[in-house]
């Protein structure tokens, strides 16, 4: 068979992946890859100039995403993807900057940056893959681990309260907030598309299975069992009050788009304010000075 | 080389005195002048000081060890810094705020009611500028024009005129003091 004849076998998102880095490192049954697929799908469907889209990841399983996506891609340090992205965006406002990282990276070690970027309504998109534990290091308890779930550093079960990420993001000032699971791939794609088409701080949480660690340690079965759990226990409630989104161990998962509002971004506020105060001395930032 | 120390309590504009003098000397009098200041809790409330080292050439060692000129605008500052003044130095004080002991050695003491004058001009905040004018006339280390040229940027624009008025008040008082001193000789 000639090479050209095999073209139809090519994965449609291959052009968006660094195929020279495949196979990836994720475990069988892991949900991160499916979120990457949704992301690539959204890029595909968007009319964006992909040369102007940059992706920034931190550290962890999801932190590896930047390495597989064929965009200008930055694999940074643990917790600092958001401030890195902030610098990138402000230096080059024409870029669409996406932070793609895990719950430990974004809401644990990087939690402070999350709330401040949301507060500023920084014009970036954060895709936060939440697998309820620190997977890269072997399944430790996280800020998102539901109470009572078992983790390698919570061998008697987790007794801490966990973050509800949509509630946190909205309270801090995010102007677009959605939550989905790895089961809702088309919804994830749609949310990412919506986020691409708007300005301001967008936060998309995607709950995904960590089969090797979280599921095994808690005897929850394989990837399919977890998807079944999502199927049975998730409930779409667009516009739900983010105060009601807590996740209990194997409990109900309220998903949907909770927040979608317009508010001037950091750069809008800066430009408007400085133009008002400084008058003609001020050249609007981000216009003709890239 | 001349070592000058301005002292008083926090809020009197003591650091400003060092800044304005340093700037006038460096930019408008072809001298080299390094200004340093004491920071920290002592800069708020209790005795604070700023120092200017003046030289014809580049100032290498930037700190004051035994000042030749000491300006004191508070009793506490006077008590703290006066013992370091050279025996042939010049002491300049606000006479309402500082009760000076009999002078040591050949120290010459000059007094001005700078705070009272500033109050008479309508704003006691300019007492430091009255003092600066007086200091300029007494020490003649730099011309009054150079000092005034150094003011913009170092005093709020809307108070520039008031500050110049305060400076002149102190300067004229200083000139009178100097004239009388000559007559006595």
């Amino acid at each position, binding site marked *: 068979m000639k090479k050209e004849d095999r073209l139809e076998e090519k994965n449609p998102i291959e052009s968006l992946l*660094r195929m020279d880095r495949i196979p990836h490192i994720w475990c069988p049954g892991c949900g991160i890859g499916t979120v990457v697929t949704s992301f690539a799908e959204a890029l595909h469907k968007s009319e964006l100039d992909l040369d102007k889209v940059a992706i920034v990841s931190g550290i962890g399983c999801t932190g590896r995403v930047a390495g597989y996506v064929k965009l*200008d891609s930055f694999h940074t340090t643990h917790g600092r993807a958001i401030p890195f992205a902030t610098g990138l965006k*402000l230096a080059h406002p024409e*870029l669409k900057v996406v932070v793609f990282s895990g719950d430990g990276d974004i809401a644990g070690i990087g939690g402070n940056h999350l709330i401040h970027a949301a507060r500023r309504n920084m014009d970036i998109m954060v895709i936060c893959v939440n697998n309820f534990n620190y997977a890269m290091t072997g399944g430790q308890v996280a800020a998102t681990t539901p109470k009572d779930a078992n983790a390698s550093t919570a061998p008697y079960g987790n007794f801490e309260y966990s973050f509800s990420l949509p509630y946190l993001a909205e309270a801090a000032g995010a102007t677009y907030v959605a939550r989905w699971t790895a089961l809702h791939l088309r919804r994830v794609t749609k949310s990412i598309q919506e986020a691409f088409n708007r300005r301001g701080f967008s936060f998309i949480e995607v709950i995904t299975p960590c089969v090797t660690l979280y599921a095994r340690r808690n005897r929850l079965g394989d990837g399919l069992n977890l998807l079944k759990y999502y199927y049975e226990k998730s409930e779409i409630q667009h516009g739900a009050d983010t105060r009601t989104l807590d996740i209990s161990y194997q409990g109900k998962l309220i998903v949907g788009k909770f927040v979608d509002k317009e508010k001037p971004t950091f750069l809008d506020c800066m430009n408007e304010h400085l133009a008002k105060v400084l008058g003609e001395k001020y050249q609007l930032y981000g216009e003709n000075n890239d | 080389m001349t070592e000058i120390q301005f002292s008083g309590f926090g809020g009197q504009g003591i650091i400003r005195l060092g800044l304005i003098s340093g700037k006038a000397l460096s930019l408008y009098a072809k001298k080299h002048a390094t200004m340093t200041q004491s920071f920290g809790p002592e800069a708020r409330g209790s005795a604070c000081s700023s120092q200017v080292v003046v030289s014809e050439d580049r100032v290498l060692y930037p700190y004051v060890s035994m000042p030749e000129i000491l300006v004191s605008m508070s009793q506490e500052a006077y008590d703290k810094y006066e013992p370091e003044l050279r025996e042939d130095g010049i002491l300049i004080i606000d006479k309402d705020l500082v009760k000076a002991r009999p002078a040591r050695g050949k120290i010459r003491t000059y007094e001005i009611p700078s705070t009272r004058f500033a109050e008479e001009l309508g704003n006691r905040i300019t007492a430091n500028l009255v003092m600066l004018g007086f200091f300029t006339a007494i020490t003649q280390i730099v011309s009054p024009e150079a000092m005034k040229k*150094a003011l913009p940027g170092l005093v709020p624009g809307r108070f520039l005129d008031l500050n110049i008025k305060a400076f002149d008040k102190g300067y004229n008082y200083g000139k009178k003091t100097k004239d009388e001193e000559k007559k006595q000789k």
Partner: protein
Amino acid sequence: MKKIKADPKGVLTGAHYLDGDHSLAEGGLAAGCRFFAGYPITPSTETAERFSERIPKVGGIFIQMEDELASIAALIGAVWGGKKAMTVTSGPGFSLMMENIGLACMMETPIVIANVQRGGPSTGLPTLTGQQDMMQAKWGSHGDYEIIALSPDSPQECFDLTIEAFNLSETYRVPTFVMTDECVGHMHEKVVIPPAEEIELVERKWYTGPKDKYLPYKPDKDMIPFMVKAGDGYRFHTTGLTRDERGYPVINAECQDVCVHHLVDKINKNADKIIKLEEQEIDNAEVIVISYGITSRVTTRAVEQARKAGIKIGTIRLITVWPFPEKRIKELAKKVKAFVVPEINCGQVVLEVERCAAGQAPAIHVPHCGGWVHDPDDIFKAIKEAAK
């Protein structure tokens, strides 16, 4: 290495009466820094304040981040977005920046960090001076790497050396530090800012070849790889992991060997080009005082005393502290009786002098724990001891 003239927009040409902190900001603006991210910390805050006032008027951006971890991360991001970027901090903030200084080294990202040093450890002496972060500048982040550190002795040099720091940082694609201290930071002196056309800047080493041939970490003839910025269609990858020329992670000893040697060699092998010293009366000296920053100015008092006492004394002021002038010290160690090294710490740069002198001449340290400068008499006593 392409040289360009400074953009007049950022250059405040003229004579000014400025403190070191403000001069750092003016140096940055003159060097073309158009992105500043920082977090307030005494005694460096005045630099941030000046940037916040000046940079919006010259087409740049100031952002006060939530902490120093964020500041330095934003800096690296901004450089990959095409800007020249700088931050300023002091001890505690410097400590917080360490991890991402390593990232900047690994990603070969040119950034400038000024540290207005104060007494430590911990919160230490927020308002008082120190030179205790010198080794931290060299070794503070984990792993092996090399950086460049300069030490200004005056507000004028805070201006000059910040420009120099940007030039070195762009030339070698490495984080470059301006290691000043509270004394210089808060000292006012005349600072002359030349016209823009007299300020020579090093332009970033932009890649211009075919897009599909771009390799982010392929060293050029001068060891330094070409750089691109995000948004220009290269679709490149970079990472903090050990990586190959493509910027792809390769987790093995062979790649680590190439990668780390490159990071270390590009500075060490260019050390002669980087290092700047100010030497005085070295030729017949029996004793050489080696100092840097504010301490070199305090040393002048002691040196005067020593000369009056008939001691043949020379001085070296380290304008560049890292990389260290190994060769020069080795050379001089054969000729002198001893080195005297005063610094405001319990013994940092003196260790390097000792290492280079390799037993040929002793290095006598004059310690000071911070809070104030040395009493020149203490330095003089050490010189007398050294001359015996």
